């Protein structure tokens, strides 16, 4: 877990580039058309302030197969291995038992064709397909060092989805940054959208017609609720999507190196303790955790002085 934090920190401090592509497919009817375009616009707005980010959006008649492939080819020529690429697909999708297709103007684009284009990009990748039947795309898209998120668990969940709406909402809601480190990761956004989608169906007293999935191990069907126990979410937890505040500019002056080292050690101990929680008795865990948290708070106070 410490590795996770270090990698996350690396993602924050190293001058890596971030590439984003949002595609809003065909709505089929004006209401959906309007909604999909608005969500794509919201994504663009949310990412606008992200330092060093290259943000591309394709909506309406521009969201063609050729344009999508061209944008991805453009990224392939610019991106490096330590860069990040996040691709979001909004709209309706279909699955014919063999391949998933995103409904766009002209010829639809399949998951296999997307995979071909994405495989040429050396960057770490996040692919989010927030459409109906998107679960059918997992098999074609999954790959080592790529996180795949879909709105549905299978290609058979064919109703229009709400997952994308909440995915976009997460970028506006500070509550989505659950660890309060001012960096919104793919895992945090996924968990936010998953919970809100579930609440939506619960509140409306409707049978849930979509069950989102996250797959970031390169194999298997993915998990609706990624966790340490099922081994999913590790990569997504390291994938920064949006920086919310001053996290990227933390100053590490030489005078504070010792404190930073101490802080680092304490954070490691906290992570390790959390992983031992299940095997410890509660009072012992609580006592140790509280000691570590208090110590960390003191160190942070010294660093902030």
């Amino acid at each position, binding site marked *: 877990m410490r590795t996770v934090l270090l990698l996350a920190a690396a993602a924050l401090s190293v001058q890596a580039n971030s590439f984003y592509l949002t595609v809003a497919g065909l709505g089929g009817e004006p209401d959906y058309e309007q909604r999909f375009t608005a969500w794509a616009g919201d994504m663009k707005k949310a990412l606008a302030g992200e330092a060093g980010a290259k943000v591309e959006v394709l909506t309406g008649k521009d969201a063609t197969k050729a344009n999508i492939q061209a944008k991805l080819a453009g990224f392939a020529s610019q991106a490096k291995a330590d860069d990040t690429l996040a691709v979001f697909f909004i709209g309706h999708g279909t699955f014919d038992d063999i391949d998933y297709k995103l409904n766009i103007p002209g010829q639809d684009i399949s998951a296999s064709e997307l995979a071909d284009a994405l495989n040429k990009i050396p960057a770490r990748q996040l692919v989010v397909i927030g459409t109906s039947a998107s679960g059918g795309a997992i098999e074609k898209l999954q790959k080592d060092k790529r996180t795949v998120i879909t709105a549905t668990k299978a290609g058979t969940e064919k109703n229009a989805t709400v997952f994308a709406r909440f995915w976009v909402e997460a970028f506006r809601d*500070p*509550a*989505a940054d*659950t*660890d*309060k*480190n001012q960096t919104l990761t793919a895992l945090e956004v996924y*968990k*936010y959208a998953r*919970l809100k989608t579930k*609440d939506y169906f*619960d*509140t*409306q*007293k409707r049978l849930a017609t979509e069950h989102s999935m996250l797959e970031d191990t390169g194999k298997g069907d993915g998990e609706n609720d990624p966790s340490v126990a099922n081994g999913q979410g590790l990569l997504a937890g390291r994938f920064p999507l949006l920086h919310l505040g001053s996290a990227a500019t933390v100053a590490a002056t030489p005078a504070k190196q010792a404190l930073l080292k101490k802080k680092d050690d304490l*954070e490691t101990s*906290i992570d390790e303790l*959390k992983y031992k929680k299940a095997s410890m008795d509660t009072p012992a865990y*609580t006592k140790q*955790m*509280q000691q570590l*948290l*208090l110590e*960390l*708070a*003191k160190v*942070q*106070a010294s660093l*902030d002085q």
Partner: protein
Amino acid sequence: MMKSKFPYLIAALVLIALYVGDEQRWFRRVHAQSGPMPQAECDKLRDKPDVAAAKACYTKLTQSRDPWAIAEGYLGLGNMGSANTAFQAAIAANKKDPVRLTRWGQMYILIDQPKDARDCFEESLELDPDYAPAMMGMAKVLSIGYDGEATKWAEKALKADPKMYQAHELMAQMHLEDNNEAKALEDAKNALQIAPNDALQAMAILATIEQMNDRPGKEWLDKIFKIRSNYGEAYETMGHFFVINRRYDEGIAAYRKALELKPDLWTARAELGVNLMRFGKDEEARMQLEKTFNEGPAPSLLIVRNSLKLLDSYANFETTTTPRTILKLQKKEAALLRPYIQEEFETALTTYEKKYKFKLDGPVQIEVYPDHEDFAVRTMGMPGLGALGVTFGKVVAMDSPNGRKPGEFHWAATMWHELSHVYVLTMTQSRTPRWFTEGLAVYEETAVHPEWGDRMTPREIKAIKEKKLLPIADLDRGYIHPSYPEQVIVSYYQGGRVLTYIIDKWGFDAVLKMIDGYKNLKDTPTVLKDALGVTPEEFDAQFFPWLEKDTKTAVDGFDNWTKRLKDVAASAKEKQWDAVIKDGLEIRDIYPDYIEPANVYEFLSQAYLGKGDKPKAITQLEAWAEHGGRTPATLKQLADLQMEAGNKKAAVSALEKLNFIFLKDEVAHQKLGTLYMELGNPKGAVREFQGVLGSGTIDQAGAHYNLATAYRAVKQNDKALEEVFASLEAAPGYKPAQKLLLELSAQ
């Protein structure tokens, strides 16, 4: 739930037994050259009673070559699955026989399949429109659903066969369900005139009337048991009436007596189990229900299966107690609901204790069900109940605020309604008529807060206009045997208005006098005379003009209002805001109680917002909320507009209203908590931030931190510390929480 099935014991074929004698006559009429019905001899043995011989007789029937005899054999043995198959074969063998079809229908009644039963009776009547037993079947199946049409079918059956005393028995039962003893008595006696030694149910009704009036009814019971020593059905009938009159203790005792006489009276055992469960005696309830499931007819009654399933689910509930409250909540929603429900629970008990001048002798239990069907099973043993809450003695079962779509249900009003029942029924030992109990509870909903309680809806306007409200002497009938689909709801409304009128004119002390009168077993005419000094007719002569005057504008203007509301809606769709405002303002006060979706207030507010006039939009939404508007999204919109206008107190009021309607809204709790902190009400903030956590927020760190700040503000530093640690455990680097931790640790 581990169960085995031994479907070999004799079932309690009460309903079928009622008609056998007459069916025999009809059978001979239909089948002029035939002998007796196949099961006649076995039934005689069963009624003798000679259980072993009857069982042997029915078993022998199952070995017959005649599919009808086989069906009757299995029916007698309580093996409904095999009986059903055999009936199909019997009917295929003779498709023109109304008798077989009717018998099949009666079997369906026994296994809770009223629709199939009705189909059989209808088909039977198509074959022979004068077949009285099929008419009785129709009457019975309708009476089970408390359908007022049942009487018509019983009357038809009597016309077809004036000797069908069972029709009188059924009508006596229905009259007694309406609390009309005089008519029940008349029909029971008519039945006895026709069949002095066979009309056992009529005798049971007469004994029940006696017992309901706290007299032993020995004369009738002795007569019954002289004719049939094991006629447990007599006590089962009493149990039914005690239960529907909310005299559950006595109902349970009656069912026990029924089972002493006839241990295989499975319908009584099922009712005993269900009523024990209603009273929270879960262990014995399970024992009785499992016995019924394992040893009674198979498939077992739906009520039994449902109740056992519900008992299994109780492992998912948690209970908290105080000296006067027991609150049982499903674990998943307990953290969210407990603070709100507990607070309102205590307030209601304190208020009622003072108001009714009565102290309960033990704690009251409230059970809250997030799954409406579980609640329905809890109360009726069957899903599909339309009610929101039900009271059994000092136990209240109700829907959870999360059990319905947001805005459909005012949980606090429901709770106060039910708790009113607890007091009134305890004070009178459940001797009040339904119109009084329900009317008072409906009155109490709006007595707590004027905007609570249900409004006059178009269905009540229609009922007033068409003069469908009932005289006070007959009002109970509207609750028990409605004569049109919406009469139950209309009767609730009327009951509430009756009590409002009484309290407005004679004061609440008159209500206490009425309660005292009912407690002393006085009937409604006497109670009205003693407490109000009027006869029922005089009461109606005063009440109806008062109600008509009060509702005149809405009733007279309803058609015009409906037409013009459509115009307002059309203008709103076209964003013709001036037209919306002009027409909306003109019609709004014709029917100001209309606060359901597509109401004038919201159209007006939309129009004012469209024109950029937020203050006027706020005014309309405030008027909507004051009239009882419940749509969560609109209440939140109102709070947002009020906050934007800098009126934090008003926003608090709007969000507090929302809390009584829908609780699983973390954003609303967050806003209200923050407002409470800003307005110096940290205690309220503690509850709201707990609400954020209980709503299952994804932002655990933020929610625990906010709760910590609220605890700190109410000087509960130990709890503040717990919460800040919880916040930091979720987000160790969360700086505001770290700062608070250091401050708290330094203290």
